[in-house]
Each structure stands twice: as C-alpha cells, then as structure tokens.
C-alpha cells in the first residue's frame, strides 16, 4: 500500500512540477511579447509612462537574470504564495482574488459532482437489463452527455430564468444585498445557485448513468454472475455483486473526469455570471490579465490533484486488493 501511495504521490508531484513549468515557460517562449501587449492594453499616452511600465513588468517577470535563475525565482515566489498582482483589480494580489472566488466554485462543483455521481450510478445500475426503461432513458442520457455544458446552461437560463422567470440569472447573489447570515440573503444565494448547479448536475448525470449501465451489463455476463445465478441466487443478490465490481472503474472514471467537470463549471459560471473562478477567467482574458489567469490555472491544477488523491484513498478503502498488495488499481 505504501508503494501504491508512493507511486501516486510521485505522479502528482511530477504533474505539479509540469504545471508550474508550463506556467513559467509559456509567457516566455510563446510567439509575441506579453509585456508589450500588456503595456499596449494600458493605453498610456506618454513615452516615459510606457518605459516605466515596461520596466515594471520586465522586473515582475524577472527577465533581467539568466533563464535558470528565472525558473528558480519563479518557484521561490510560488512557495511564498506570491502569484503576482492582478491588473484587472489592480493593487490586489492574485492569490487574494482567487481565494475570495474559490468558495463559490467549490459550492457549485462539490454538490454537482457528488450528487450526479451518486444518482447516475444508482439509476444506471437500475436501468441496466430492464428493456423498456433502458430503451426510453438511454437516448436521453446520451443527449445529456453530448450536450456542451454551456449550452445546457444557456438553455436553462433562458427557459427557467428569462421566459418562466422562476430563477434569477446573473451574479452569485442580488447586487442589492450584503452577505450576512439572514434568511433573505441565504435564500437569495440558493436561488442564484440552483440553475448553475442543475446544468452541471444534468450533464454529468448522463455520463455516469451510461457508464454504470454498460458496466453492469458487462459484469452480468461475467462467469461469477452466471455461476451465482446457476446456484439459484436471487437476481437481486447477483446485481448487488455486479454493482460492487462495476463501482471500481467508475471511481477511476471520476478521477479522469474531474478536469472536464471543472472546465464545465468554468463555462457554466460564465453563462450565469456566477462570481466564481469561471467569472475570473473570463475577466482576466478580456483584460489580458495574465497573472490572474496563470494563478487560476495553478489553483485548478492543485484542486484536481488534491481531489485525485482523495479518490485514491477512497479506492483503497473500497478495493481490498490494493491493501493486500495484489496490485488492483495500480497506475
């Protein structure tokens, strides 16, 4: 088991190093000059101002020292929690802006991921090998999983928000309210949260349900299932064993899907003007605020790595083979 976690942690450490390196490399070696484009965006009139700004940014990127030292400095800055200063919300440091937005994104993502995973697996397992149900719901699931996150978000915002007027659209809470622990504020928060949550939930739900249905069908064809059936075990029991076995690939599937779901959350937030990381991504791209964008990138990577590690722990708890060192779930 130590070996299993050791390998996993090594992979995550390498991924983190790769992510930081990408973050360092791209602004420096991409065609075009990010400093010049940032200076140009500022629209300064006087040449002195332009020169001063150029120098300021060149210093920020640390262009005046050798390349290897730039790289080390970059890491040192990272460990001090220094991600640079945002241009979009000028004197505020990037890390502060991101930390203020993260709770909103997590508040959308965690319930959407957990609930869709739970409901999708249950429902998918239930529909497998039930002819009528399978034929009616399977096409719906395929449509759901093929729907781009943002389009479903736009549809929901339009149909339930604008046309039916049941839910408010835009921002994480009404602009007229101040965050507080009052009932008005919390109900307002929830009504703004519901539609983005629903669109994330629905798309992810379709995927899990299809995956589980297919896995159950596959497991029910396995020798152990036929053997149990031949022994006269009730089909409920057989299905329960099948479900347990089918759960393992689904857990790995969850780890693989995390990046996609996070991407979905980013665009969903953009559609709903929800003030989480997605909103920051949009604003940072609009204003060419590369420090902010790179900070968000690192945060997403760290978040996905942490989630992956949690899933690994769950896998060990669920699959006894990993504990006895028989190598189940080896990566």
């Amino acid at each position, binding site marked *: 088991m130590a070996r299993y976690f050791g390998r996993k942690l090594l992979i995550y450490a390498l991924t983190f190093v790769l992510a930081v390196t990408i973050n360092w490399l791209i602004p420096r070696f991409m065609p075009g000059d990010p400093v010049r484009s940032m200076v140009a965006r500022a629209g300064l009139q006087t040449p002195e101002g332009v020169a001063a700004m150029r120098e300021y940014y060149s210093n920020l990127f640390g262009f005046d020292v050798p390349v290897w030292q730039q790289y080390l400095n970059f890491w040192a800055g990272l460990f001090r929690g220094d991600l640079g200063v945002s241009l979009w919300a000028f004197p505020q440091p990037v890390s502060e802006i991101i930390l203020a937005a993260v709770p909103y994104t997590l508040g959308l993502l965690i319930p959407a991921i957990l609930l869709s995973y739970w409901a999708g697996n249950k429902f998918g397992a239930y529909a497998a090998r039930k002819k009528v149900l399978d034929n009616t719901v399977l096409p719906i699931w395929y449509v759901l999983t093929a729907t781009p996150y943002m389009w479903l978000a736009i549809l929901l915002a339009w149909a339930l928000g604008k046309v039916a007027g049941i839910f408010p659209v835009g921002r994480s809470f009404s602009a007229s309210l101040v965050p507080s622990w009052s009932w008005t504020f919390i109900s307002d928060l929830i009504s703004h949260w519901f539609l983005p949550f629903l669109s994330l939930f629905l798309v992810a739900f379709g995927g899990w349900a299809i995956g*589980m249905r297919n896995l159950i069908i596959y497991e029910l064809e396995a020798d152990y299932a036929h053997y149990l059936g031949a022994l006269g075990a009730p089909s409920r029991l057989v299905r329960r064993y099948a479900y347990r076995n089918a759960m393992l690939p689904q857990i790995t599937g969850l780890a693989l899907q995390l990046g996609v779901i996070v991407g979905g959350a980013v665009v969903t937030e953009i559609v709903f003007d929800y003030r989480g990381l997605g909103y920051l991504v949009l604003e940072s791209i609009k204003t060419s605020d590369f420090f902010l964008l790179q900070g968000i990138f690192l945060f997403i990577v760290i978040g996905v790595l942490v989630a992956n590690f949690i899933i690994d722990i769950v896998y060990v708890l669920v699959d006894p083979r990993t504990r006895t060192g028989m190598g189940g779930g080896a990566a």
Partner: protein
Amino acid sequence: MTTVNPADPTEPAASSMPPGEPPPATVPGVATVHGVPVRREALYFARRNKKLVGGLAVVLAFLALALVGPLFVADDPLAYVGPPAQPPSGTYWLGTTTFGQDVFAQFVHGLRATFLVGIVGALIAGVLGMVVGFTAGYRGGAVDEILTMVTNVVLVLPVLAVLMIIAAYLQVRNVAVQAVIIGLFSWPWVARAVRAQTFSLRSREFVDLAKLSGAPVRRIIFTEIAPNMASYLFMVFILLFGGAVLFAATLDVIGLGPTDGISLGLMLNHAKQWSAMNLGMWWWFIPPGLAITTVVGAFYIMNVGLDEVFNPKLREM
C-alpha cells in the same frame, strides 16, 4: 481465431469520454489472417444496426451541410448584411444577430470549423496515443515505465486549464491551431487503453510466431497486434472527435476562440456577450448548441452501434 481478453478490470482502459465506458470492446472472432470474411460479417451486422445507421445518417447530413452550405451563403459570415435582430424568415433562415449578421451563414461556416477541429484533433490525439500505447505495451521494461509515467502525469493534468493558458498567450488563433493544441493534450487515455491491450496481446502465440519468423517490430505491431483491436481504435477516434468538439466549444465560450472566422462555440460566445438571452433572440443561441449536441450525440450513438456490431455478445438478433 484469436480473442482479445478484456483488459485488466482494475485498469479501466476505456473510461473515456462518457465516463466509465465498459471495458474495451473486445473483438472475439476477428481473425488477423483471414480478414475478408470477418469484414463481410461486420458489414452485414453494421447495415442492420439501427443505432449505427441512424447515427451515421445524422453525422453525414451535418457533414454535407458543413461542406455544401458555405457555398451558398456569403463568403464572410461576419458581414453585416441585413436588418438587425430579425427572427427567422425566408431570406434569413435562422434570423439575424443584433448587428444584422446572417445567423445561418455563421451556422454553416461554424459547422465546418467544428468538423475540422473534431477530425484534426482526433487524428493528432489518436496517433500520439497509439504510438505511445503500442510502444509502451510492446517494448515493456524501462521504456514502458517511463512512457506510462508520462501518460499518467499528462492524464492528471486538467486539459482545459492547460489549453486555456496556451490559447491565452497565442496572439493569433485559428481553428487549425485550436485543433492542434487540443490534439496534443487529449491523447493520454488512448495511450493507456492501447497499452493495456497491447500488453495482453504481445505474449500470444501468433505474435511469437511473427517474432520467430524475424518480422520487424513495426510490422508485428501493424499486422499482428493492431488489427486485433481495429474496432476499438475506430471507436477511440469517435470518442476523441466528440471530446475535441466539446473542448473547442468550451474554449470559444471562454473567449479563446478563433480570432479570425467563426465557429459554433464562438456564436454562443457572441450571443452571450450581446445578451441574446435577455433580448429573447433564441435563434441566435439555440442552433449552434443544438448542432454540437446532435453531432456529438450521433457519434456516441454510432459508437454504441459499432460496439454491438463488433461484439457478438451485445448483438440483438
């Protein structure tokens, strides 16, 4: 006759685009030597599979629209041609935008971009994944260790976040560039799946025989190993296509779409930016999303159909 064992169940090779797809569609009864009768058999079942035929028909219809459509509309889909904010009518089939651009013209041009991103992205990712997967699985040993490590590292990296950073720093972006960067980062799950299958195939008698007869490695891989998973590789391309299209649409909506030209995702981006939702201009944002959903959905359903064609266990007689 050779059969492919399903990959190790703990290595869910195919949990790919639709999460947790069943373990790789195996190809019982696909003979490598006598390929022709098997192919005829597959064709027989393919033509009778409603999912496959239906999905293919939808995809081909959209492909035809993407190829032919742009010939009948204005060359510049972004040109201001008509009165602003018109609902669909005889002249403007899908209405016009707030600025009087023809939505139908944008739609057919965007459809072309979507197919381009899907095909190029899938080809790049598919080839990369196959090269890594075959090499790792066939060579084994240290090569395998290193390649598997690289695969796993890229696999954990959230693709969209990486694409976001790269695209943001590209001053000029077009559909082809988008397709290339998407392809360069979506290969790992393919490599993993191909490696797992190659691993189980490489110790078979027919591979040993090929080795004994002195065939070079490349020929063993292409003529002995790859044909045994041809159906699976075909399905991999379908899933990669769907994935690339969805990634491209996501990037477009974030505002990192092509800087010249139009795509379906960019249409959604524009519609959102100029609050088509608030203005009730449904003809601006419904068609592009519907087209993406229909094309990707049709591909997924084709995939299910193919699975049934190649895997006799799933065939409905």
